[in-house]
């Protein structure tokens, strides 16, 4: 049997392989022009689904974003809108 005894998981962060993106009814769309890279959406995303690179907004992790819409509500520049999938 290849299972690690005790139900221990020895591969950290393996949940990344489990995609929660298909839970989504609404998807976030970013207005790149309006975005000021303030990272507000990143700090409030419950699903770590705002990808940031070098301190700048890069993308939404659509494989995992559950479409809660928090990012749209907290964006100080109203740069994110939620649209029906």
């Amino acid at each position, binding site marked *: 049997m290849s299972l690690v005894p005790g139900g221990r998981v020895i591969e950290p*962060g393996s*949940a990344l392989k*489990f995609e929660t993106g298909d839970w989504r009814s609404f998807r976030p769309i970013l207005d790149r022009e309006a975005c000021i890279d303030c990272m507000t959406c990143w700090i409030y995303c*419950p699903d770590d*689904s705002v990808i940031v690179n070098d301190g700048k907004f890069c993308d939404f992790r659509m494989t*995992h974003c559950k479409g809660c819409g*928090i990012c749209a509500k907290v964006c100080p520049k109203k740069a994110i809108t939620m649209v029906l999938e």
Partner: protein
Amino acid sequence: MSKSPTRLTSGHRLCAGCGEGIIVRQVLMATDKPVVVSNATGCFEVSTSIYPYTAWNVPWIHTAFGNAAATCAGTEAAYQALKRQGKIKEDVRFVAFAGDGGTYDIGFQALSGALERGHQMMYVCMNNEAYMNTGIQRSGATALGASTTTSPAGSVIPGKVGYPKDLTMIVASHNIPYVAQVSPHNWRDMIAKCGKGFECKGPAFINAMSPCPRGWRTDPSDTIALALLSVETCVWPLYEVENGNYRLTAESAKIAEGKLAKRPLTDWLNAQGRFKHLMKDKWRDLIEDAQADIDKKWERLQKLCKL
């Protein structure tokens, strides 16, 4: 901060808009030291460790429901022993996460014991005011009048009977070095407080307001707005007790100074489906009682902060 390593990955299975994911990410940003996490049974534990996956990039352990503090204390005791023998070199931080059920109720004894013994650990309660994992049953943290599946809004009894216990104050009475109330809408306040909690000498306790769209009957996108509202209505004042000294922080400090308006409790109640039944005329007295209770506690807290 955005460059710090991801300790909790995507792919966990919390509800969309859950406050807990936001809180844990912020708490773990408050230290750059290695952390070992303990977790009580509850939404967060279940959602982040569904076999064969784990959302954890750090060592993590869950044993049972009523013992997150003892679990954390056990990892810390092992660390103290191995560190003393030179078998471990790193400077490690120990943190426990639990819901209000695992903290206010079934885990209270273990928490009190661990605090009294003085383990080097930080305990974070994520308070969503009911047992959400098992389907919204009332807890010792449930607000007066809130409708839950074990305190339903009936025709005779209007939801939860009695006020929630003031656990933060109870914990502060253990005279541990650091105690604070936080809310995820104010991440600066949260991270500053957790930073103190991680670095103080002895146990620290953080009580975090954690909006729950499912249990509160609110829109997932409103989680942060509700967190803010809990503070603006003084339902959840932000404060810390550092070595016995009480201090209001963030929005709560501004309300005390008159720089920010204290909003009426009805704003808080109206925003959530779990309180909808209270809007009927026949429960008006109950709302007045609830407001009076909040005002009384707020006054007392302000007095403590002036000492």
